[in-house]
C-alpha cells in the first residue's frame, strides 16, 4: 500500500460481535456438523470476586496481629441431623471429580493433598475407588443420577454423602464420558461395556422434586444409621429457591456451584450460556438460609472459579461456610503445565487453554485413563503440591481475616466488603466502593 493509499482506506477492522473465536466456531461447526464438547467451566469474562475488595480495619475496627493472634480456620459440617458431623481444619474442600474423568494417580493426589491439610475430598460419577478411600482421611461420597458404582458398602465407608442435583458448568444437564476413557476398570465400575460412550443421566432414577428428595434423604440416613452428614449439590441457577428447597428436604449442607465450576465434558454452548456466575449466586443462597433461620445450621459450601485465598475470603464474607475447589486443584497437581507446552502445541492448543479433557490425551496424566499418560503423574509429588496450595489459600484467608479484625475466618461478613462495579455491588449486595449505594436494595 502506498503512502497515499493510507489516506484512501481504513485499516482492516474485525467485528466485536464476530470475533476470532466466534468465526472459528462457525467454521468448526460447519465442518463437523456437531457441537463442541470440552472440559472446564465458563471461560467468558464474568462478574467475579475480583470485583470485590475488603475494607480492612481502621479507626472503628481493630486488626489482629499477623503472627501472634490466632485466627481460626476450622469448620464443622453436618451439625443439623448427622450423628457424626465432619470437622475440617480449613474451610476449603476438594470438589467431586470422578475416577474415569480423572486418572487413578490424580484421584490419589487429591486425597493425599486434602488429607495433609485436614480437609475433605469427594468422589464423582463413577463410584469410590479403594485407592481414593485409602488416601482420603475425609471422603464425601456422591450420589449421582447415573448411580454408577453406587453401593451400600461404599455409602457406609464414606464420611459424608453428597446428593448431586446439578453442577455449575451444566445445571440441568447430564454427562458424557467418551469411549476412549472407558477402560476395562472404568467400565466394570459402571457396569457398562468397555469402550462405549458413557452417558450420565440428568435426573435421578428414583426421585424427582423436593418432596421425593426429602424421602430419598431419609432412606440414605436410614441406610447409614443417621451417622453421615448429607449434602445436596446444586448448580447455580435459582439459588434462593434451590437452597430453600434443599433445606426443606432435610439436607445437612448445601453445595452451590457457579458456572465457572468445571466439568469433565459437556457442550461449550451449555458451559458458557446456562447458569449463574458464582458471585451472583452466593447472596441469594445465604438469604434463603437466613430467611429460614438456618444460616450456619445448614452449612453452605460454594464452588466455581475459586482461585486464591481472596476468593475464599470473599465467599466466606458473603456468608458461605466453606468453599470447594476443582479446577484450581487440578492446576495445582499439574494440569495445563507450561512445561508440557510442546505436547499441548502438538494437539493444537497451548498450556493454560487445554480443555479437551474428554479425549483422554492429557499429557499431564490427569484427565486420562491411558496407563502410559497416567503414569506421568506422581501422586505423592502432586499431592504435596496440592497440600502446599491449600495451605497458601488458608494463610491468605487468615491474612485478610486478621486485617479485618476477625479471630475466625467465618467471622468475615458482608460489611467487610465493597464492590468495584455496579454489577458486582448488586450481585454481592455490598456497597459500590466509596458510596453507601447497594444497587437493587430497597430503602428501609
Amino acid at each position, binding site marked *: 500500500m502506498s503512502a497515499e493509499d493510507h489516506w484512501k482506506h481504513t485499516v482492516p477492522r474485525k467485528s466485536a460481535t464476530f470475533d476470532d473465536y466466534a468465526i472459528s466456531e462457525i467454521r468448526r461447526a460447519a465442518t463437523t456438523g456437531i457441537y463442541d464438547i470440552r472440559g472446564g467451566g465458563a471461560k467468558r469474562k464474568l462478574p467475579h470476586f475480583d470485583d470485590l475488595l475488603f475494607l480492612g480495619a481502621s479507626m472503628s475496627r481493630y486488626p489482629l496481629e499477623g503472627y501472634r493472634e490466632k485466627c481460626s480456620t476450622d469448620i464443622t459440617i453436618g451439625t443439623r441431623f448427622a450423628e457424626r458431623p465432619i470437622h475440617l481444619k480449613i474451610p476449603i474442600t476438594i470438589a467431586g471429580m470422578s475416577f474415569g474423568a480423572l486418572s487413578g494417580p490424580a484421584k490419589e493426589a487429591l486425597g493425599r493433598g486434602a488429607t495433609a491439610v485436614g480437609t475433605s475430598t469427594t468422589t464423582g460419577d463413577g463410584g469410590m475407588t479403594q485407592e481414593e478411600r485409602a488416601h482420603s482421611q475425609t471422603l464425601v461420597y456422591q450420589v449421582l443420577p447415573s448411580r454408577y458404582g453406587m453401593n451400600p458398602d461404599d*455409602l457406609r465407608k464414606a464420611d459424608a454423602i453428597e446428593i448431586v442435583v446439578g453442577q455449575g458448568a451444566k445445571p440441568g444437564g447430564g454427562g458424557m464420558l467418551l469411549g476412549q476413557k472407558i477402560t476395562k476398570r472404568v467400565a466394570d465400575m459402571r457396569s457398562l*461395556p468397555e469402550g462405549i460412550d458413557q452417558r450420565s*443421566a440428568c435426573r435421578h*432414577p428414583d*426421585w424427582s422434586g423436593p418432596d421425593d428428595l426429602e424421602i430419598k434423604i431419609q432412606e440414605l440416613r*436410614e*441406610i447409614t444409621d443417621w451417622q453421615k452428614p448429607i449434602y445436596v449439590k446444586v448448580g447455580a441457577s435459582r439459588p434462593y429457591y434451590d437452597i430453600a428447597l434443599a433445606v426443606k428436604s432435610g439436607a445437612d449442607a448445601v453445595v452451590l456451584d457457579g458456572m465457572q465450576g468445571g466439568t469433565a465434558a459437556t457442550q461449550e454452548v451449555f458451559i458458557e450460556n446456562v447458569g449463574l456466575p458464582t458471585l451472583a449466586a452466593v447472596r441469594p443462597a445465604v438469604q434463603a438460609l437466613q430467611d429460614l433461620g438456618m444460616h450456619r445450621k445448614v452449612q453452605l459450601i460454594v464452588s466455581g472459579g475459586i482461585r486464591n485465598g481472596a476468593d475464599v475470603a470473599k465467599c466466606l464474607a458473603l456468608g458461605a461456610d466453606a468453599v470447594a475447589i476443582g479446577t484450581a486443584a487440578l492446576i495445582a497437581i499439574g494440569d495445563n503445565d507450561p512445561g508440557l507446552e510442546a505436547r499441548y502445541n502438538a494437539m493444537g492448543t497451548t498450556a493454560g487453554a487445554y480443555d479437551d479433557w474428554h479425549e483422554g490425551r492429557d499429557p499431564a496424566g490427569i484427565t486420562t485413563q491411558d496407563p502410559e499418560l497416567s503414569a506421568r503423574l506422581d501422586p505423592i509429588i502432586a499431592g504435596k503440591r496440592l497440600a502446599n496450595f491449600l495451605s497458601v489459600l488458608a494463610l491468605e484467608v487468615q491474612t485478610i481475616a486478621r486485617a479485618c479484625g476477625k479471630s475466625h475466618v467465618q467471622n468475615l461478613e458482608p460489611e467487610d466488603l465493597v464492590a468495584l462495579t455496579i454489577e458486582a455491588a448488586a450481585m454481592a449486595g455490598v456497597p459500590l466502593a466509596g458510596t453507601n449505594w447497594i444497587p437493587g436494595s430497597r430503602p428501609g
Partner: protein
Amino acid sequence: MATIDLANFPIRKLNAELHSLKPDTNDTHWRVLNPRGQHAIAVGVDAPVTIEVAGHVGYFCAGMNKQAHVVIQGNAGQGVAENMMSGFVHVNGDASQAAGASGCGGLLVIDGNASARCGISMKGIDIVVKGSVGHLSAFMAQAGSLVVLGDAGEAIGDSIYEAHIYVRGQVKSLGADCIEKPITDRHKAELTRLLEAAGEVDGIDIGSFRRYGSARNLYHFHVDNIGLY
C-alpha cells in the same frame, strides 16, 4: 420369629436392629406389622434373613438390599428395592414408579403391575413383573433382565445398554435404540430360570415372549443419529 409392630416402634430403630444382625444370626425371620405406607422400611439390610412386611409400604422399601429375602404383603411405593445388590424382594401387590431402579443384583418379583420406569438404570438386577409395566421401563438399562408377563407401556428400553427385556403381552412402543431380538436357547434358559425363581413354573409358554435389547447404534455418539436422541 421377631415381630416388630411399627405402630409403636420407630423405623429408625427397626433398621438399626436389622443392620446390627451378624451373618450367623439366629434371628433369621422377621415380621413387620403396621407398615402403613411408611418410607424406607428395611433398607440397607445385609444379612441372610427373611423379612415379611404385613401391609403396604411407602418409598424405597428394601432399598440397597443385600442377601435378605423381603416379602411385602401389599403394594409398594416408589423405588422399591432401588439399587438392590443381592437377595430377593417380593411384592405381593402392585409397585409404584422406579421399581428396582439402578439395582445391581438379586431378584425383584412383583405379583401385580409396576408403574413407570420399572428397572430404570438397572445394573444387573433381575425383575419379574407378573402384570404390566408403565412407560419408559428399563430406561438406560445396563445389565440384568426385565421379564414382563403382561403389557409394556411407551418407550420400553429407551437408550438401553446390555440388559435383556422379555415381554409376553403387547408393547406400546420401543424407546430409542431398542429393537426386538431373537430368543435363542440361552435366552430361553434364562427366561425359564427367572420364571421359576418367581414361582411361575407351570402354564407359561416360553414361546409366547418376545425379547428386546439394544441395537447398539447409540453406543458411540454420532451426528448421523441425531434424530434418535
